[in-house]
Protein backbone atom coordinates (compact mmCIF):
# COMPACT_ATOMS: atom_id res chain seq x y z
CA UNK A 1 0.00 0.00 0.00
CA UNK A 2 1.38 3.40 -0.96
CA UNK A 3 -0.46 6.35 0.59
CA UNK A 4 0.97 9.16 -1.49
CA UNK A 5 4.66 9.01 -2.25
CA UNK A 6 6.56 11.92 -3.75
CA UNK A 7 4.30 14.91 -4.25
CA UNK A 8 5.69 18.42 -4.49
CA UNK A 9 3.13 21.10 -5.22
CA UNK A 10 2.30 24.70 -4.33
CA UNK A 11 -1.35 25.75 -4.32
CA UNK A 12 -2.06 29.46 -4.50
CA UNK A 13 -5.34 29.89 -6.35
CA UNK A 14 -8.54 30.92 -4.53
CA UNK A 15 -10.08 27.60 -5.53
CA UNK A 16 -8.01 24.57 -6.42
CA UNK A 17 -9.32 21.25 -7.62
CA UNK A 18 -7.48 18.04 -6.89
CA UNK A 19 -8.24 15.64 -9.67
CA UNK A 20 -7.29 12.02 -9.89
CA UNK A 21 -8.54 8.49 -10.05
CA UNK A 22 -9.64 6.64 -6.94
CA UNK A 23 -6.58 5.90 -4.83
CA UNK A 24 -4.47 8.60 -6.48
CA UNK A 25 -3.76 10.26 -3.12
CA UNK A 26 -6.18 13.20 -3.07
CA UNK A 27 -7.78 12.35 0.26
CA UNK A 28 -4.42 11.38 1.74
CA UNK A 29 -3.04 14.81 0.89
CA UNK A 30 -5.98 16.54 2.60
CA UNK A 31 -5.79 14.36 5.68
CA UNK A 32 -2.06 14.88 5.93
CA UNK A 33 -2.64 18.64 5.82
CA UNK A 34 -4.92 18.29 8.84
CA UNK A 35 -2.57 15.99 10.72
CA UNK A 36 -5.00 13.08 10.55
CA UNK A 37 -2.25 11.11 8.83
CA UNK A 38 1.36 11.53 9.95
CA UNK A 39 3.83 12.65 7.29
CA UNK A 40 6.83 10.34 7.30
CA UNK A 41 9.25 12.73 5.61
CA UNK A 42 9.39 16.00 3.73
CA UNK A 43 7.58 19.20 4.62
CA UNK A 44 4.00 20.31 4.49
CA UNK A 45 2.99 23.93 4.98
CA UNK A 46 -0.57 25.22 4.89
CA UNK A 47 -1.49 28.89 5.24
CA UNK A 48 2.16 29.52 6.01
CA UNK A 49 2.08 27.18 9.02
CA UNK A 50 3.94 23.94 9.52
CA UNK A 51 1.26 21.26 9.36
CA UNK A 52 3.16 19.00 11.74
CA UNK A 53 4.31 21.46 14.39
CA UNK A 54 1.47 24.00 14.32
CA UNK A 55 -1.37 21.56 13.89
CA UNK A 56 -3.63 23.11 16.53
CA UNK A 57 -3.38 26.65 15.13
CA UNK A 58 -3.83 25.31 11.65
CA UNK A 59 -6.96 23.32 12.44
CA UNK A 60 -8.64 26.40 13.81
CA UNK A 61 -8.15 28.08 10.44
CA UNK A 62 -9.19 25.14 8.29
CA UNK A 63 -12.57 23.59 7.68
CA UNK A 64 -12.72 19.98 6.56
CA UNK A 65 -15.52 18.13 4.83
CA UNK A 66 -14.70 14.41 4.73
CA UNK A 67 -15.91 12.26 1.88
CA UNK A 68 -17.30 9.44 3.97
CA UNK A 69 -20.37 9.53 6.19
CA UNK A 70 -19.24 11.12 9.44
CA UNK A 71 -22.31 12.65 11.04
CA UNK A 72 -23.86 11.48 14.32
CA UNK A 73 -27.28 10.32 13.25
CA UNK A 74 -29.05 11.17 16.50
CA UNK A 75 -28.00 14.83 16.59
CA UNK A 76 -29.62 17.65 14.69
CA UNK A 77 -27.59 19.66 12.19
CA UNK A 78 -27.98 22.69 14.45
CA UNK A 79 -26.67 20.89 17.54
CA UNK A 80 -23.80 19.35 15.59
CA UNK A 81 -22.67 22.67 14.14
CA UNK A 82 -22.89 24.37 17.53
CA UNK A 83 -20.96 21.51 19.13
CA UNK A 84 -18.15 21.58 16.56
CA UNK A 85 -17.97 25.36 16.68
CA UNK A 86 -17.56 25.15 20.46
CA UNK A 87 -14.81 22.56 20.06
CA UNK A 88 -13.05 24.99 17.74
CA UNK A 89 -13.09 27.63 20.45
CA UNK A 90 -16.18 29.73 19.79
CA UNK A 91 -18.27 30.92 22.71
CA UNK A 92 -21.78 29.55 23.10
CA UNK A 93 -23.56 32.61 21.75
CA UNK A 94 -21.22 32.94 18.76
CA UNK A 95 -21.50 29.22 18.05
CA UNK A 96 -25.30 29.33 17.94
CA UNK A 97 -25.32 32.39 15.70
CA UNK A 98 -22.70 30.99 13.36
CA UNK A 99 -24.47 27.63 13.14
CA UNK A 100 -27.68 29.35 12.08
CA UNK A 101 -25.81 31.43 9.50
CA UNK A 102 -24.00 28.57 7.82
CA UNK A 103 -27.03 26.29 7.84
CA UNK A 104 -28.99 29.09 6.21
CA UNK A 105 -26.19 29.58 3.68
CA UNK A 106 -26.22 25.91 2.66
CA UNK A 107 -30.01 25.80 2.48
CA UNK A 108 -30.81 23.82 5.62
CA UNK A 109 -32.56 26.51 7.62
CA UNK A 110 -35.92 24.70 7.64
CA UNK A 111 -34.63 21.24 8.57
CA UNK A 112 -31.80 22.18 10.90
CA UNK A 113 -33.51 20.88 14.05
CA UNK A 114 -34.30 17.43 12.66
CA UNK A 115 -31.99 14.50 13.52
CA UNK A 116 -29.35 13.96 10.85
CA UNK A 117 -30.47 10.34 10.56
CA UNK A 118 -33.67 11.53 8.85
CA UNK A 119 -31.80 13.56 6.20
CA UNK A 120 -31.39 12.71 2.53
CA UNK A 121 -27.86 12.26 1.20
CA UNK A 122 -27.84 15.75 -0.25
CA UNK A 123 -28.86 17.25 3.09
CA UNK A 124 -26.14 15.29 4.85
CA UNK A 125 -23.57 16.59 2.37
CA UNK A 126 -24.74 20.13 3.07
CA UNK A 127 -24.54 19.50 6.80
CA UNK A 128 -20.94 18.35 6.37
CA UNK A 129 -20.21 21.52 4.42
CA UNK A 130 -21.90 23.67 7.07
CA UNK A 131 -19.82 22.22 9.90
CA UNK A 132 -16.68 22.90 7.87
CA UNK A 133 -17.63 26.57 7.60
CA UNK A 134 -19.07 27.22 11.03
CA UNK A 135 -15.92 28.69 12.57
CA UNK A 136 -15.20 31.00 9.62
CA UNK A 137 -12.12 29.23 8.26
CA UNK A 138 -9.57 30.78 5.91
CA UNK A 139 -9.39 27.55 3.97
CA UNK A 140 -11.83 24.69 3.46
CA UNK A 141 -10.81 21.24 2.33
CA UNK A 142 -13.69 19.51 0.57
CA UNK A 143 -13.19 15.83 -0.09
CA UNK A 144 -15.47 14.75 -2.92
CA UNK A 145 -18.30 17.16 -2.01
CA UNK A 146 -20.61 15.88 -4.74
CA UNK A 147 -20.08 12.20 -4.01
CA UNK A 148 -23.36 10.28 -4.29
CA UNK A 149 -25.52 13.30 -5.12
CA UNK A 150 -28.20 13.32 -7.79
CA UNK A 151 -27.85 15.87 -10.64
CA UNK A 152 -29.94 18.53 -8.90
CA UNK A 153 -28.13 18.10 -5.59
CA UNK A 154 -24.80 18.11 -7.36
CA UNK A 155 -25.55 21.36 -9.16
CA UNK A 156 -26.63 22.93 -5.89
CA UNK A 157 -23.49 21.80 -4.08
CA UNK A 158 -21.23 23.04 -6.87
CA UNK A 159 -22.97 26.40 -6.78
CA UNK A 160 -22.35 26.71 -3.04
CA UNK A 161 -18.69 25.71 -3.41
CA UNK A 162 -18.14 28.28 -6.17
CA UNK A 163 -19.85 30.89 -4.01
CA UNK A 164 -17.35 30.26 -1.21
CA UNK A 165 -14.24 31.28 -3.11
CA UNK A 166 -15.76 33.79 -5.50
CA UNK A 167 -18.02 35.79 -3.18
CA UNK A 168 -17.04 34.98 0.39
CA UNK A 169 -13.27 35.00 0.07
CA UNK A 170 -12.79 31.53 1.52
CA UNK A 171 -9.96 29.58 -0.07
CA UNK A 172 -11.13 26.22 -1.31
CA UNK A 173 -9.32 23.00 -2.09
CA UNK A 174 -11.72 20.42 -3.40
CA UNK A 175 -11.06 16.91 -4.59
CA UNK A 176 -12.97 15.05 -7.23
CA UNK A 177 -12.55 12.47 -9.92
CA UNK A 178 -15.07 14.33 -12.09
CA UNK A 179 -13.47 16.97 -14.31
CA UNK A 180 -16.73 18.84 -14.78
CA UNK A 181 -17.00 19.47 -11.03
CA UNK A 182 -13.54 21.03 -10.99
CA UNK A 183 -14.20 23.16 -14.07
CA UNK A 184 -17.35 24.59 -12.51
CA UNK A 185 -15.91 25.38 -9.10
CA UNK A 186 -12.17 25.98 -9.35
CA UNK A 187 -9.60 28.35 -10.77
CA UNK A 188 -6.80 25.81 -10.93
CA UNK A 189 -6.61 22.08 -11.36
CA UNK A 190 -3.96 19.81 -9.89
CA UNK A 191 -3.88 16.30 -11.27
CA UNK A 192 -2.55 13.69 -8.88
CA UNK A 193 -1.57 10.34 -10.25
CA UNK A 194 -0.23 7.47 -8.14
CA UNK A 195 0.84 9.81 -5.36
CA UNK A 196 2.69 12.23 -7.63
CA UNK A 197 1.92 15.51 -9.33
CA UNK A 198 0.86 14.72 -12.89
CA UNK A 199 -0.28 18.18 -14.02
CA UNK A 200 -1.07 21.63 -12.69
CA UNK A 201 -2.72 24.38 -14.72
CA UNK A 202 -5.43 27.02 -14.58
CA UNK A 203 -8.90 25.82 -15.45
CA UNK A 204 -9.31 28.64 -17.95
CA UNK A 205 -6.34 29.62 -20.08
CA UNK A 206 -6.08 32.77 -22.13
CA UNK A 207 -5.71 31.80 -25.83
CA UNK A 208 -2.07 31.58 -26.88
CA UNK A 209 -1.26 34.20 -29.51
CA UNK A 210 -0.07 32.69 -32.75
CA UNK A 211 -1.04 29.12 -31.88
CA UNK A 212 -3.03 26.69 -34.02
CA UNK A 213 -6.61 27.60 -34.88
CA UNK A 214 -9.62 25.96 -36.47
CA UNK A 215 -11.50 27.88 -39.17
CA UNK A 216 -14.97 27.25 -40.56
CA UNK A 217 -16.64 29.27 -43.28
CA UNK A 218 -19.83 29.14 -45.28
CA UNK A 219 -19.70 28.12 -48.94
CA UNK A 220 -17.12 25.96 -50.68
CA UNK A 221 -14.59 25.01 -48.04
CA UNK A 222 -12.02 23.48 -50.42
CA UNK A 223 -12.02 26.48 -52.71
CA UNK A 224 -11.61 28.87 -49.77
CA UNK A 225 -8.72 26.81 -48.45
CA UNK A 226 -6.98 26.74 -51.82
CA UNK A 227 -7.18 30.50 -52.26
CA UNK A 228 -6.13 31.14 -48.68
CA UNK A 229 -3.07 28.92 -49.18
CA UNK A 230 -2.07 30.93 -52.27
CA UNK A 231 -2.49 34.26 -50.45
CA UNK A 232 -0.47 33.09 -47.47
CA UNK A 233 2.33 31.83 -49.68
CA UNK A 234 2.30 35.09 -51.58
CA UNK A 235 3.04 37.09 -48.45
CA UNK A 236 5.62 34.60 -47.24
CA UNK A 237 3.60 33.04 -44.42
CA UNK A 238 4.43 29.37 -44.03
CA UNK A 239 1.21 28.01 -42.65
CA UNK A 240 0.02 24.41 -43.02
CA UNK A 241 -3.67 24.28 -43.94
CA UNK A 242 -5.51 21.05 -43.31
CA UNK A 243 -9.17 20.81 -44.38
CA UNK A 244 -10.97 18.23 -42.25
CA UNK A 245 -13.96 16.01 -42.63
CA UNK A 246 -15.84 17.86 -39.90
CA UNK A 247 -15.85 21.00 -42.06
CA UNK A 248 -13.02 22.86 -40.33
CA UNK A 249 -9.76 24.04 -41.82
CA UNK A 250 -6.87 23.58 -39.44
CA UNK A 251 -4.16 26.26 -39.47
CA UNK A 252 -1.01 25.37 -37.58
CA UNK A 253 -0.11 29.04 -36.88
CA UNK A 254 -2.19 32.15 -36.45
CA UNK A 255 -0.14 35.32 -36.44
CA UNK A 256 -2.00 38.62 -36.72
CA UNK A 257 -1.07 38.78 -40.40
CA UNK A 258 -2.57 35.35 -41.04
CA UNK A 259 -5.78 36.27 -39.23
CA UNK A 260 -6.02 39.50 -41.23
CA UNK A 261 -5.72 37.54 -44.44
CA UNK A 262 -8.48 35.16 -43.39
CA UNK A 263 -10.76 38.07 -42.56
CA UNK A 264 -10.00 39.90 -45.81
CA UNK A 265 -10.46 36.81 -47.95
CA UNK A 266 -13.80 36.03 -46.35
CA UNK A 267 -14.97 39.56 -47.05
CA UNK A 268 -13.68 39.45 -50.59
CA UNK A 269 -15.38 36.12 -51.39
CA UNK A 270 -18.50 37.14 -49.48
CA UNK A 271 -18.48 34.06 -47.26
CA UNK A 272 -19.38 34.01 -43.59
CA UNK A 273 -16.93 33.15 -40.81
CA UNK A 274 -18.68 30.49 -38.74
CA UNK A 275 -15.82 29.71 -36.41
CA UNK A 276 -12.27 30.80 -35.72
CA UNK A 277 -11.09 29.27 -32.47
CA UNK A 278 -7.85 28.35 -30.74
CA UNK A 279 -6.84 24.72 -30.87
CA UNK A 280 -4.53 24.76 -27.87
CA UNK A 281 -4.86 21.65 -25.75
CA UNK A 282 -7.97 22.04 -23.55
CA UNK A 283 -8.32 21.10 -19.92
CA UNK A 284 -9.74 17.71 -20.74
CA UNK A 285 -6.86 16.85 -23.08
CA UNK A 286 -4.32 17.96 -20.49
CA UNK A 287 -5.95 15.92 -17.77
CA UNK A 288 -6.34 12.82 -19.90
CA UNK A 289 -2.71 13.05 -20.95
CA UNK A 290 -1.57 13.58 -17.36
CA UNK A 291 -3.56 10.70 -16.00
CA UNK A 292 -2.10 8.44 -18.66
CA UNK A 293 1.39 9.50 -17.64
CA UNK A 294 3.24 6.90 -15.62
CA UNK A 295 4.46 7.84 -12.17
CA UNK A 296 7.78 9.63 -12.23
CA UNK A 297 7.43 10.94 -15.76
CA UNK A 298 7.61 14.61 -16.60
CA UNK A 299 4.92 16.93 -15.30
CA UNK A 300 2.97 18.81 -17.98
CA UNK A 301 2.57 21.88 -15.83
CA UNK A 302 1.85 25.38 -17.00
CA UNK A 303 3.06 28.39 -15.05
CA UNK A 304 0.32 30.18 -13.19
CA UNK A 305 0.82 33.44 -11.35
CA UNK A 306 -0.47 32.79 -7.82
CA UNK A 307 -2.59 35.12 -5.80
CA UNK A 308 -0.64 36.65 -2.90
CA UNK A 309 -1.92 35.55 0.46
CA UNK A 310 -3.44 32.37 -0.87
CA UNK A 311 -3.07 28.99 0.76
CA UNK A 312 0.17 27.21 0.26
CA UNK A 313 0.84 23.54 0.47
CA UNK A 314 4.16 21.93 -0.20
CA UNK A 315 4.52 18.20 0.18
CA UNK A 316 7.72 16.34 -0.39
CA UNK A 317 7.87 12.79 0.67
Amino acid sequence: MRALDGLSVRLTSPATGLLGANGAGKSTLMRAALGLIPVDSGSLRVLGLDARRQRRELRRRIGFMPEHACLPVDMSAQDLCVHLARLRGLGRRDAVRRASEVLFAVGLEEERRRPVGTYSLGMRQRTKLAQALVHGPDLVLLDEPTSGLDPAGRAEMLSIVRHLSRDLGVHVVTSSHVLDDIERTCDEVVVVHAGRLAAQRPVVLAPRRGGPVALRVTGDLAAFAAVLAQRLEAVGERVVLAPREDGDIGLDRSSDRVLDLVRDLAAERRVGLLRLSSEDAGLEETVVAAMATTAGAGVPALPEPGRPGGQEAVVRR
Partner: protein
Amino acid sequence: MSVPGTGSPATGGTRDEVGGRQSSRAVLHDIRYSRFSGQLRSRASSVADLVRTDVMRPLGLRRSAGAKVWPFLLLAAAYLPALAVVAVPLLVPGVPLEPLEMLSYSALLATDTMVLLAFVATTVPSLLTRDRRDRVLSLYFATALSPGEYVLGKALAALSLVLIIVLGPLLVLFGGSVISADAPGEWLAEHAGDLPRLVGAALVVGGFHAVLGLLVGSLTSRRVFAVGGYLAVVLVGPALAVLLANVLGDDGWLGLDPASGPMRLATRVLGDPMEGSGALAWGMWGVVVGGGSLGLWLRYRGGRDS
Protein backbone atom coordinates in the same frame (compact mmCIF):
# COMPACT_ATOMS: atom_id res chain seq x y z
CA MET B 1 -23.47 43.42 -0.06
CA SER B 2 -24.81 46.83 -0.83
CA VAL B 3 -27.43 47.65 -3.40
CA PRO B 4 -27.93 51.38 -3.92
CA GLY B 5 -31.38 52.62 -4.65
CA THR B 6 -33.30 49.62 -3.35
CA GLY B 7 -34.49 48.45 0.00
CA SER B 8 -36.93 49.19 2.72
CA PRO B 9 -36.69 49.59 6.47
CA ALA B 10 -36.92 45.82 6.71
CA THR B 11 -33.92 45.45 4.47
CA GLY B 12 -31.85 48.15 6.04
CA GLY B 13 -33.31 51.24 4.39
CA THR B 14 -32.26 54.49 6.11
CA ARG B 15 -34.37 57.50 7.01
CA ASP B 16 -33.50 61.12 6.49
CA GLU B 17 -32.72 62.62 9.92
CA VAL B 18 -34.60 65.89 9.31
CA GLY B 19 -37.74 64.93 7.45
CA GLY B 20 -38.00 61.33 8.42
CA ARG B 21 -38.50 60.52 4.76
CA GLN B 22 -37.24 57.31 3.22
CA SER B 23 -33.77 57.92 1.87
CA SER B 24 -33.04 57.14 -1.76
CA ARG B 25 -29.97 55.18 -0.64
CA ALA B 26 -30.46 51.90 1.11
CA VAL B 27 -28.24 49.04 2.15
CA LEU B 28 -29.24 45.41 1.83
CA HIS B 29 -27.29 43.26 4.24
CA ASP B 30 -26.53 39.68 3.28
CA ILE B 31 -27.14 38.01 6.63
CA ARG B 32 -26.58 34.50 5.36
CA TYR B 33 -22.86 34.16 5.92
CA SER B 34 -20.04 36.22 7.29
CA ARG B 35 -16.51 35.51 8.37
CA PHE B 36 -16.02 35.00 12.12
CA SER B 37 -13.69 37.54 13.65
CA GLY B 38 -14.49 37.12 17.34
CA GLN B 39 -12.26 36.02 20.18
CA LEU B 40 -11.67 32.29 20.54
CA ARG B 41 -12.08 30.67 23.95
CA SER B 42 -9.57 28.55 25.82
CA ARG B 43 -9.09 24.86 25.20
CA ALA B 44 -10.68 24.13 28.57
CA SER B 45 -13.90 25.62 27.24
CA SER B 46 -13.82 23.23 24.29
CA VAL B 47 -13.24 20.22 26.53
CA ALA B 48 -16.05 21.40 28.81
CA ASP B 49 -18.41 21.44 25.85
CA LEU B 50 -17.35 17.95 24.86
CA VAL B 51 -18.13 16.81 28.41
CA ARG B 52 -21.48 18.60 28.45
CA THR B 53 -22.55 17.09 25.12
CA ASP B 54 -21.40 13.62 26.12
CA VAL B 55 -23.32 13.77 29.39
CA MET B 56 -26.49 14.94 27.68
CA ARG B 57 -26.58 12.43 24.82
CA PRO B 58 -26.63 9.16 26.84
CA LEU B 59 -29.33 10.64 29.04
CA GLY B 60 -31.43 11.34 25.95
CA LEU B 61 -31.43 15.10 26.48
CA ARG B 62 -32.12 17.05 23.26
CA ARG B 63 -33.16 13.73 21.73
CA SER B 64 -36.48 11.97 21.24
CA ALA B 65 -38.70 11.09 24.19
CA GLY B 66 -38.00 7.41 23.66
CA ALA B 67 -34.28 7.95 24.15
CA LYS B 68 -34.93 9.32 27.64
CA VAL B 69 -36.98 6.37 28.93
CA TRP B 70 -34.28 3.84 29.83
CA PRO B 71 -31.69 6.16 31.42
CA PHE B 72 -34.29 8.01 33.47
CA LEU B 73 -35.91 4.75 34.51
CA LEU B 74 -32.57 3.62 35.91
CA LEU B 75 -31.97 6.99 37.56
CA ALA B 76 -35.40 6.77 39.19
CA ALA B 77 -34.59 3.27 40.44
CA ALA B 78 -31.29 4.49 41.89
CA TYR B 79 -32.78 7.52 43.63
CA LEU B 80 -35.95 5.80 44.85
CA PRO B 81 -34.48 4.12 47.98
CA ALA B 82 -32.89 7.36 49.16
CA LEU B 83 -36.02 9.37 48.41
CA ALA B 84 -38.18 6.82 50.20
CA VAL B 85 -36.24 6.82 53.47
CA VAL B 86 -36.10 10.61 53.38
CA ALA B 87 -39.80 10.93 52.66
CA VAL B 88 -41.00 8.59 55.40
CA PRO B 89 -39.96 10.71 58.43
CA LEU B 90 -41.02 13.87 56.61
CA LEU B 91 -44.48 12.63 55.63
CA VAL B 92 -45.18 10.39 58.61
CA PRO B 93 -44.57 12.42 61.76
CA GLY B 94 -44.93 9.41 64.04
CA VAL B 95 -41.89 7.64 62.69
CA PRO B 96 -39.04 8.15 65.16
CA LEU B 97 -36.27 6.89 62.87
CA GLU B 98 -33.87 9.11 60.97
CA PRO B 99 -33.18 8.28 57.30
CA LEU B 100 -29.66 7.05 58.05
CA GLU B 101 -31.00 4.71 60.69
CA MET B 102 -33.22 3.10 58.05
CA LEU B 103 -30.61 3.02 55.28
CA SER B 104 -26.91 3.69 55.75
CA TYR B 105 -24.70 5.09 53.02
CA SER B 106 -23.04 1.70 52.55
CA ALA B 107 -26.39 -0.06 52.38
CA LEU B 108 -27.58 2.46 49.79
CA LEU B 109 -24.50 1.78 47.64
CA ALA B 110 -25.09 -1.96 47.89
CA THR B 111 -28.78 -1.52 47.04
CA ASP B 112 -27.96 0.45 43.92
CA THR B 113 -25.27 -1.93 42.66
CA MET B 114 -27.31 -3.68 39.96
CA VAL B 115 -28.87 -0.42 38.81
CA LEU B 116 -25.40 1.08 38.59
CA LEU B 117 -24.09 -1.78 36.46
CA ALA B 118 -27.07 -1.51 34.09
CA PHE B 119 -26.66 2.27 33.86
CA VAL B 120 -22.93 2.12 33.17
CA ALA B 121 -23.35 -0.67 30.61
CA THR B 122 -25.87 1.34 28.60
CA THR B 123 -24.30 4.78 28.82
CA VAL B 124 -20.53 4.72 29.26
CA PRO B 125 -19.19 2.42 26.50
CA SER B 126 -21.43 4.14 23.95
CA LEU B 127 -19.55 7.39 24.56
CA LEU B 128 -16.80 5.87 22.42
CA THR B 129 -18.58 3.29 20.29
CA ARG B 130 -20.97 5.87 18.89
CA ASP B 131 -18.12 8.07 17.66
CA ARG B 132 -16.54 5.13 15.89
CA ARG B 133 -19.86 3.89 14.48
CA ASP B 134 -20.73 7.32 13.09
CA ARG B 135 -17.08 7.94 12.13
CA VAL B 136 -17.18 11.30 13.85
CA LEU B 137 -13.55 11.12 14.92
CA SER B 138 -12.40 12.65 11.63
CA LEU B 139 -14.53 15.69 12.44
CA TYR B 140 -13.31 15.90 16.03
CA PHE B 141 -9.64 15.51 15.20
CA ALA B 142 -9.96 17.90 12.28
CA THR B 143 -10.97 20.56 14.80
CA ALA B 144 -8.48 21.90 17.31
CA LEU B 145 -9.28 19.02 19.65
CA SER B 146 -6.21 16.93 20.44
CA PRO B 147 -6.39 13.19 21.16
CA GLY B 148 -5.49 13.88 24.78
CA GLU B 149 -8.32 16.39 25.13
CA TYR B 150 -10.68 13.93 23.50
CA VAL B 151 -9.80 11.16 25.97
CA LEU B 152 -9.92 13.59 28.89
CA GLY B 153 -13.33 14.87 27.82
CA LYS B 154 -14.70 11.36 27.45
CA ALA B 155 -13.29 10.30 30.83
CA LEU B 156 -14.80 13.33 32.58
CA ALA B 157 -18.13 12.73 30.86
CA ALA B 158 -18.13 9.07 31.90
CA LEU B 159 -17.19 9.98 35.46
CA SER B 160 -19.92 12.62 35.56
CA LEU B 161 -22.51 10.13 34.37
CA VAL B 162 -21.51 7.55 36.98
CA LEU B 163 -21.43 10.17 39.73
CA ILE B 164 -25.00 11.18 38.87
CA ILE B 165 -26.15 7.70 39.80
CA VAL B 166 -23.67 7.03 42.64
CA LEU B 167 -23.08 10.35 44.37
CA GLY B 168 -26.54 11.77 43.68
CA PRO B 169 -28.50 9.32 45.86
CA LEU B 170 -25.89 9.63 48.64
CA LEU B 171 -26.32 13.40 48.62
CA VAL B 172 -30.10 13.02 48.63
CA LEU B 173 -29.78 10.82 51.71
CA PHE B 174 -27.43 13.32 53.33
CA GLY B 175 -29.64 16.31 52.49
CA GLY B 176 -32.78 14.47 53.57
CA SER B 177 -31.17 13.63 56.89
CA VAL B 178 -30.40 17.31 57.44
CA ILE B 179 -33.97 18.32 56.65
CA SER B 180 -35.61 15.62 58.72
CA ALA B 181 -33.36 16.13 61.75
CA ASP B 182 -34.89 17.70 64.87
CA ALA B 183 -32.10 20.30 64.88
CA PRO B 184 -30.85 20.53 61.29
CA GLY B 185 -28.06 22.98 62.08
CA GLU B 186 -26.62 20.82 64.84
CA TRP B 187 -26.99 17.69 62.72
CA LEU B 188 -25.17 19.34 59.81
CA ALA B 189 -22.34 20.56 62.02
CA GLU B 190 -22.01 17.13 63.55
CA HIS B 191 -22.02 15.26 60.20
CA ALA B 192 -20.19 17.75 57.96
CA GLY B 193 -17.28 15.30 57.83
CA ASP B 194 -19.52 12.84 55.98
CA LEU B 195 -19.46 14.95 52.80
CA PRO B 196 -15.80 14.39 51.79
CA ARG B 197 -16.24 10.70 52.60
CA LEU B 198 -19.32 10.52 50.36
CA VAL B 199 -17.45 12.21 47.52
CA GLY B 200 -14.42 9.96 48.04
CA ALA B 201 -16.55 6.81 48.07
CA ALA B 202 -18.40 7.92 44.93
CA LEU B 203 -15.10 8.65 43.17
CA VAL B 204 -13.79 5.19 44.06
CA VAL B 205 -16.83 3.52 42.54
CA GLY B 206 -17.28 6.01 39.71
CA GLY B 207 -13.64 6.04 38.63
CA PHE B 208 -13.53 2.26 38.42
CA HIS B 209 -16.67 1.82 36.36
CA ALA B 210 -16.06 4.87 34.17
CA VAL B 211 -12.62 3.66 33.12
CA LEU B 212 -13.74 0.05 32.73
CA GLY B 213 -16.73 1.07 30.59
CA LEU B 214 -14.61 3.34 28.40
CA LEU B 215 -11.89 0.75 28.00
CA VAL B 216 -14.39 -1.83 26.77
CA GLY B 217 -16.02 0.80 24.54
CA SER B 218 -12.71 1.73 22.94
CA LEU B 219 -12.23 -1.79 21.63
CA THR B 220 -15.21 -1.90 19.28
CA SER B 221 -17.52 0.28 17.23
CA ARG B 222 -20.51 -1.96 17.95
CA ARG B 223 -22.43 -0.85 21.01
CA VAL B 224 -23.92 -4.27 21.59
CA PHE B 225 -20.47 -5.85 21.83
CA ALA B 226 -19.31 -3.14 24.23
CA VAL B 227 -22.34 -3.58 26.48
CA GLY B 228 -21.89 -7.35 26.37
CA GLY B 229 -18.19 -7.02 27.10
CA TYR B 230 -18.73 -4.79 30.11
CA LEU B 231 -21.47 -7.01 31.51
CA ALA B 232 -19.29 -10.07 30.96
CA VAL B 233 -16.54 -8.52 33.07
CA VAL B 234 -18.79 -7.41 35.93
CA LEU B 235 -21.01 -10.52 35.95
CA VAL B 236 -18.52 -13.30 35.19
CA GLY B 237 -15.86 -11.66 37.38
CA PRO B 238 -17.76 -12.24 40.64
CA ALA B 239 -18.31 -15.89 39.76
CA LEU B 240 -14.59 -16.37 39.20
CA ALA B 241 -13.77 -14.55 42.46
CA VAL B 242 -16.17 -16.75 44.43
CA LEU B 243 -14.75 -19.85 42.74
CA LEU B 244 -11.22 -18.81 43.68
CA ALA B 245 -12.28 -18.06 47.26
CA ASN B 246 -13.98 -21.46 47.60
CA VAL B 247 -11.18 -23.44 45.99
CA LEU B 248 -8.46 -21.74 48.00
CA GLY B 249 -10.59 -21.44 51.14
CA ASP B 250 -9.79 -17.76 51.57
CA ASP B 251 -12.45 -15.03 51.35
CA GLY B 252 -9.71 -12.52 50.63
CA TRP B 253 -9.95 -13.48 46.96
CA LEU B 254 -13.37 -11.84 46.85
CA GLY B 255 -11.41 -8.60 46.54
CA LEU B 256 -10.96 -9.48 42.87
CA ASP B 257 -14.69 -9.21 42.26
CA PRO B 258 -15.04 -6.30 39.79
CA ALA B 259 -18.70 -5.76 40.64
CA SER B 260 -18.60 -5.63 44.42
CA GLY B 261 -14.90 -4.86 44.89
CA PRO B 262 -15.22 -1.08 44.36
CA MET B 263 -18.33 -1.11 46.57
CA ARG B 264 -16.33 -2.74 49.37
CA LEU B 265 -13.64 -0.11 48.99
CA ALA B 266 -16.27 2.60 49.10
CA THR B 267 -17.64 1.06 52.29
CA ARG B 268 -14.16 1.34 53.78
CA VAL B 269 -13.91 4.98 52.67
CA LEU B 270 -17.28 5.63 54.32
CA GLY B 271 -15.84 4.34 57.59
CA ASP B 272 -17.71 1.06 57.75
CA PRO B 273 -16.06 -2.38 58.18
CA MET B 274 -15.07 -4.09 54.96
CA GLU B 275 -15.32 -7.74 54.03
CA GLY B 276 -12.39 -9.49 52.36
CA SER B 277 -8.91 -8.31 51.54
CA GLY B 278 -8.60 -4.56 51.16
CA ALA B 279 -5.14 -4.81 49.63
CA LEU B 280 -6.32 -7.12 46.85
CA ALA B 281 -9.34 -4.92 46.14
CA TRP B 282 -7.19 -1.79 46.01
CA GLY B 283 -4.76 -3.60 43.74
CA MET B 284 -7.57 -4.59 41.44
CA TRP B 285 -8.87 -1.02 41.47
CA GLY B 286 -5.45 0.39 40.67
CA VAL B 287 -4.88 -2.02 37.81
CA VAL B 288 -8.23 -1.25 36.20
CA VAL B 289 -8.11 2.54 36.67
CA GLY B 290 -4.39 2.98 35.95
CA GLY B 291 -4.09 0.35 33.26
CA GLY B 292 -7.37 1.32 31.67
CA SER B 293 -6.40 4.99 31.50
CA LEU B 294 -3.10 4.04 29.91
CA GLY B 295 -4.91 1.77 27.46
CA LEU B 296 -7.27 4.57 26.47
CA TRP B 297 -4.40 6.96 25.95
CA LEU B 298 -2.52 4.46 23.79
CA ARG B 299 -5.67 3.76 21.79
CA TYR B 300 -6.21 7.39 20.81
CA ARG B 301 -2.80 9.03 21.10
CA GLY B 302 -2.11 8.90 17.36
CA GLY B 303 -5.13 11.04 16.60
CA ARG B 304 -6.15 8.58 13.90
CA ASP B 305 -9.77 8.72 12.93
CA SER B 306 -10.19 5.02 12.28
